[in-house]
Structure formats: C-alpha cells, structure tokens
C-alpha cells in the first residue's frame, strides 16, 4: 500500500513567491479547460476569446480596469484586516455603509459648493464603512466575541438597514421600487478617458494600493499591526496596545470597503439600490487570499478576476460557453493558489509499505 504524508520542507528561495501566482493561474486554466470541453467548446478558441475580450482592445482594457476598481478596494480591505488577524468577513456590509453615505451626500447636499461634494462623499463613505467595522472590533477586543461571526452577520444587518432606508427616507419620491433618487452630476466621479468608463475611482484604487503598501512597510502602525497578527502575546509583551491596533486596523479595513461602495454610487449606478454590489465584499476575501495578503498581490488578483469576468462575456459569445464559467475559474483559482501556498511550506511524501 502507498500512503501519503505531509511534511515540512526547507524554506524555498524568495523568488518562488513570484513564480507561484503565475503557476497557479496556469494550472487553473488547465483545470477549467475540462468543463469547457464538456460544454462543447474549443479550449484555445475559448481562452483566446477570454483574453481578447478583456485585454484585446483599448475599450476592453479600460473596462477591465473599471471592473477591477471595487475588487481592489474590497481585496485590500480584507487583506489589511487579515494580516492583523482581524477576520473581517464584513466588507460587503461596510461597502453598503459607504454606498449609503455617498448617496446621502450626493442626493441631499445640493447646497454645498461643488468642489466639496466629492471630498465629502469620500470622507463620509470611508468613515461609514470604518465605523461599521469598529463594532466587531470592539466586541473582539473587549468581550472576546468571535470576529468571523460578527462581521459576517453584520452584513445582513446593514443590508436590512439599507432596505429600510430605501423603502423610507432615501426612497426616490414617486418610486414604488427600493431605489434612491439619482445623485447630482457634481457627485459623479469624473471620467478620465473620453468614450470609456475609466473613472476617477480607478485612481483612488491605485492610491489605496500605494497607501496600504506604505502603511505596511514604512510605519510604526504597520509594524504593530503585523506583530499583532503574528503573535498577540509577544505584541502585548512588547508594550503594543493591541486593542487599539485592532481598532485602527478595523477602521482602515472598513473604510476601504466603504470607498468601494462610494465608487459604485459615484461612478457606476449613480443611485442606491438593493443589488448595488454583486458580492464584491465576499469576492474581496478570495482576492485577498489569492494575493497572499500583500497589496501588490491583491492588485494583481483583482485584475485577474476582472479579466475573467469581463472576458467571459466575449468567450460566451465567441465560443458558446455559458458565462457561469467565470464562477468556476474564480473558485478553482483560489483552490489552486491555496494549495500552491501550502506546498511552499510543506511537501507531500509518498511512502510504500
């Protein structure tokens, strides 16, 4: 009989960490060619269409950036929290909170000077998401309530708060549907490239990547936050105020998710509605893991997911593959990445006996 055991391996050289995502993507595409074949498609034609559809023309490429923008923000939100072992599964709810705040400013603050509208939307959107995330952070540090459960459940609380607002004070006058009035034009994110949807929010996402990278590697807070994540006991021993670090981490994490909500209002939909997010908050978790919790990794993972989701439409038209293949590719890519990451630390040994 052959038996399998998992044993620790020698530390791998550091360049491996760069090769792994590429290898994981390659293996993912290899695995997902099986369902494509089953669906009667030609694998090369299908993947050709997928990448052409996402990257092949200027318009498609810009659209891929548009789609990546909220994913970068929720991915960073989750990654930043996870690094400090604050298990924030609540980016979806924090995104809603940001979207509500942005809608409120965009619809009602018509008296404000035009140049203050967007800054105020961003500020309140960030704070709304950030403060919503402080609730589970307090519960975790003061009462030791499990943060996975609280952050997840608060998503539904915020969903229903949003529902109450959309059937109540925020509902568009005269509408029977749960939707808000449209925000004023001066609350739109400016379009930066003509004849496309390439908007100001994409710049915000880039800035967020740099900001998180800066916080992580250059600030005292980044050091403390990492320390709290790696060894809470040692962090306390070293005089770090661990409760405060977790709280600040939660505000930044929730704030980033809130900014994703602002973007959906200010750049895409221009009004609030119940299905404002196709699960960006949850996809953010996958992206954070896929990006190995590193801001650059998160950016690449978000871009990859965006390629899949934008390109799948072309693939479906050209190769006749159902669009649901995106879900399969996303799921498989996460599994492959996690297995690859596991294999950087452990190896499988087969023994005959």
């Amino acid at each position, binding site marked *: 009989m052959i038996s399998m055991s998992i*044993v620790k391996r020698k*530390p791998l050289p550091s360049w491996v960490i760069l090769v792994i995502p590429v290898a994981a993507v390659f293996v993912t595409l290899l695995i997902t060619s099986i369902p494509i074949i089953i669906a009667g498609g030609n694998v090369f034609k299908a993947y050709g269409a997928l990448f052409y559809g996402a990257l092949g023309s200027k318009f498609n490429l810009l659209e891929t950036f548009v789609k990546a923008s909220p994913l970068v923000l929720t991915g960073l939100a989750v990654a930043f929290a996870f690094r400090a072992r604050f298990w924030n599964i609540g980016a979806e709810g924090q995104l809603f909170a940001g979207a509500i705040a942005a809608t409120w400013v965009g619809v009602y603050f018509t008296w404000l000077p035009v140049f203050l509208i967007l800054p105020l939307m961003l500020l309140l959107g960030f704070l709304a998401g950030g403060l919503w995330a402080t609730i589970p952070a307090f519960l975790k540090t003061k009462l030791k309530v499990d943060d996975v459960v609280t952050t997840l459940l608060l998503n539904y609380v915020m969903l229903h708060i949003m529902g109450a607002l959309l059937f109540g004070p925020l509902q568009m006058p005269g509408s029977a549907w749960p939707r808000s009035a449209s925000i004023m034009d001066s609350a739109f994110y400016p379009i930066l490239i003509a004849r496309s949807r390439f908007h100001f929010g994409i710049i915000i996402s880039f800035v967020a990547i740099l900001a998180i990278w800066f916080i992580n590697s250059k600030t005292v807070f980044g050091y403390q936050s990492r*320390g709290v994540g790696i*060894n809470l*006991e*040692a962090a306390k*021993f*070293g*005089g*770090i105020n661990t409760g405060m670090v977790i709280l600040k981490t939660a505000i930044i994490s929730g704030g980033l998710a809130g900014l994703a909500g602002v973007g959906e209002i200010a750049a895409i939909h221009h009004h609030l509605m119940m299905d404002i997010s196709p699960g960006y908050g949850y996809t953010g978790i996958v992206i954070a893991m896929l990006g190995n919790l590193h801001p650059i990794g998160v950016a690449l993972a978000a871009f990859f997911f965006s390629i899949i989701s934008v390109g799948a439409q072309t693939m479906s038209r050209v190769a006749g593959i159902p669009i649901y293949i995106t879900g399969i590719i996303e799921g498989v890519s996460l599994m492959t990445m996690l297995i690859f990451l596991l294999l950087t630390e452990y190896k499988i040994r087969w023994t005959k006996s």
Partner: protein
Amino acid sequence: MRAVTKRFVDVIANDKVDLKLYPKEVVGLLGENGAGKTTLMNVLFGYYNLDGGKLLINGEEVTFSSPRDAINHGIAMIHQHFTLVQTQTVLENVMIGMEGSFFLDKKKATVKLLKIEQEFGLNLDPKAIVWTLSIGEQQKLEILKALYRGAKILIMDEPTAVLAPIETIELFETLHTLVDSGHSIIFISHHLQEVMEICDRVVVLRTGKRVAGRKVSESSIPELASLMVGRELLERLEKGEAKVGTPVLEAKNLKGRNNRGLIAVDNLSFTLREGEILGVAGVSGNGQTELSEILFGQVKPEEGEIFVSGKSIPGGNPSAIIKTGMARIPEDRITTGLFMDLSVKENMILESHVNEPISKNGLINMQEIRSFSQNCIDNFSVKTDGMDVPVKTLSGGNLQKVILARELSGNPKVVVACQPTRGLDVGAMEYVHQAMLNQKTAGSGVLLISDDLDEIFLLSDRIIVMYEGKIMGEMSSKEADRDKIGLWMSGVSS
C-alpha cells in the same frame, strides 16, 4: 534497536543508533538538547516510522505504525508533560482507551487497579480527581496507567524535571520495585547525578549518533559529561566582583492568580540591589511564571506594588515597564518573546520601535533599524544568515541571543530573567550565564528565576526559594546549603 535511523527533511536526527535493553534493567539515555534522545524514543513508541534499521522485541522483529502497536508490545511512554484528563478521576484516566466493550465495568477495573497499586506501592485513591493531585502523584498515575496496560518497558522522558527532591526519592523507590518485578526502564535525563544513582547502564547520544555505552559502575560524572558535549564540561565563567548598591527593583506584597484563578503569587516581597544576582529557586509550577508575568507587566497584580529604582510602576502595563529600561527575558521565548514569522531585525526592535531614532512621527527608519540590528548581531555573536531572514530559521540558542541582544543593549539597570537557559545546549547556556554575570559586574541588579538549582548556585549572590507562591527562606550563596534549600523547595521550613 539496531542501526535505527530517522531523518527530518535534511537533518539526520538518529544515525544508526543501537540500543539494547535487558529485563530488570534501567538504562539511562543521555545527551544534550537536540542530540536525538526524544526522536529515538518516539521511534520506539511508534510515533515515527523508521528510515533505516530495525526494532527487535524478545528477539523478534517488529514494526510499529502507531503508539497502539507499541503499547500492545508492552511499551509505555511517560512524557515530561503528563497526558492526563484533569477533570476525570484516577480510575477513569487509567481506563481511557482500555474500556474493552461498550459498557464500562468500573468494579472490575477498580479491583485490577488496586491490585497493581498494592503490588508496586503506588497508593492513589481511584476516585480522586486528577487536578487535586500533586505533580508527584500525577506522575504515579502515569506509571499506573502504563502498568494497567501491561507495560514491561517504560520510557520516562526527564521524569525528575518537575519533581521536588523528596518526590524524586519516592520515584526512585518505585522504579526499584518495578525493576525487581521484571520491568525494564529507559530513563532520559541530562541530570548526571540522578543517572548515576538510578541507572545500571547509560547510552550517550551526540548529534544523532551513539557515541558511547557505559556501565554506570565503571564510569563517572565527569566522563559522562564530556561524552555528552564532546569536550570538558566545565563552565569557564568569569565571576567578577561588583559593589552591591542601592535597590533597583523592589516587590512589595505582590499577590496574583494563575490562569486557573488560583492564588499563585502570595504576598511576596523582595529587594534586588545594584551589582548582585538574586536567584529565585523552586520546583517549577510554584508561582515563578506568574511572578515573572507580573514583573514584566503582562499581568496586573491583585495586590502589592513594584518599584524600579525607587519609583512605583503601574501594574499590568508592559510599556510602563519597558520605559523603566528593565531587561525582560521571558520564560517562553517562542510564544512570548519573539515574532517567529518576522525577520531578525524586526524582532530586535520589538521594544524600541516607538522610540527615536528607530522611528519618528510614526514612520520607521529602516537605516537605523539595520544599523541597530547589525550592532546587536555583532555584539552578541548571533549566528544568522543576515538580519532579513525570519527569526524562526535560527537555533534555540541563537533565538535566546536575539532576545539577550534586544534586552541588554540598552545598558539596563535591572535584568529579570525567567528560565533563561531552558532548552539550551551547553554552549548557549554558558553564553547566557556569562551575560548575566557581565550585567552584574557592570552594576545592574539581576533577578534570576530558575528551576535549575545548579544554575542558581552557580550564578547567585543571594538565593530565595519559592514554594506555593510564597518565599520559604533566603540565604546568601556563601552559606548556601543544598539540603536546606531542597527542604524549602518541598515546602518544609526549618
């Protein structure tokens, strides 16, 4: 065991080791930390598969794929940390895994247990709950468990490390009874005195290889010691003299509980002065850990006060303690002292990362960190592949050097070290000892909390003994009397 070989990744933990055990014999297995003693025993007990060699029991070759196979062949292992269910009774613990059928037959089991207890003089109430038992009694229970399973060969991993001197004597009596009735024992220890006392033969391991086998009657402590370390085991410490000055650390009526809510530090006071080493002796588990946690600021004392250089320090606040400049060497370097996944340099700045010049206005200064870390690595000769590798790639001795470098580089007035050499090999131990002595001659006060009595005697100027959270007595090392300290350690005041 013939030519037993076991590899981990690229480390050979056991390299063609032979070990023979005859009936009615106690064999001592000697070696430094990392010499491969525990691995060898885990192979014998079925935890690990062999990579080479074979196991023979009564002349027959056997292969174990799990501890159950080993138990079925009459082998039992008594770990240093007991594997008992604290909330169950003695009887229930003995019966675990041996229930037989679906229904528990407690009556039959009690009869069998009492018979074993009588035969070997191990008297324990079968109905007693485990956590109410003393450490010595819990160890008896572990032995009973083994005998109940019909064990003929007992492997004991450092059984005396947790015992008071009197309990050790009792244990040895039990072992003699066992041997007389035909059992065999493998006794793992690096306590040479005890090995000489209880063992018939010893096998010495060094870096995974068997370097010698000796009859105890034909060997001596110095010979075994030099076989263990491969050189003369004589610490060449320079014991400089220092002038004892003003108090630098005072504890007044400290009281604190352990994590089970029981009083662990009980109205404890002491004074530590400049230029002296105050040793805190005691059997482990008598409140030393809790005392260190209070002094380090990790735990707030229920009552009492701490003064550093005459100033009262708020309890339960690590950063307040750090600001006093106290050097803190925690008992558990891996869970408390270090971020194992972070780099060496990031571990060097754990306590100084909020201070200039390491950081300013919330931004860290990488250049300062690098030069500070390089100094630490050079001054304390830390063996590492640079400062950027994760600290977990370092050996135990070098991990401790990272902590020493971090804690001692600021010329502290007070050093509190809790079990600073636990788990270190002789070379690293010597290094730590010398570092403590250097601190003293430089004028610091050093509080040395240790359950290694040899270490306490070697370094201290004054010795206090802790028992159940209280100080049993104090004496200067000049008048030190091992017997008296031994009595104090077991709670007998005289």
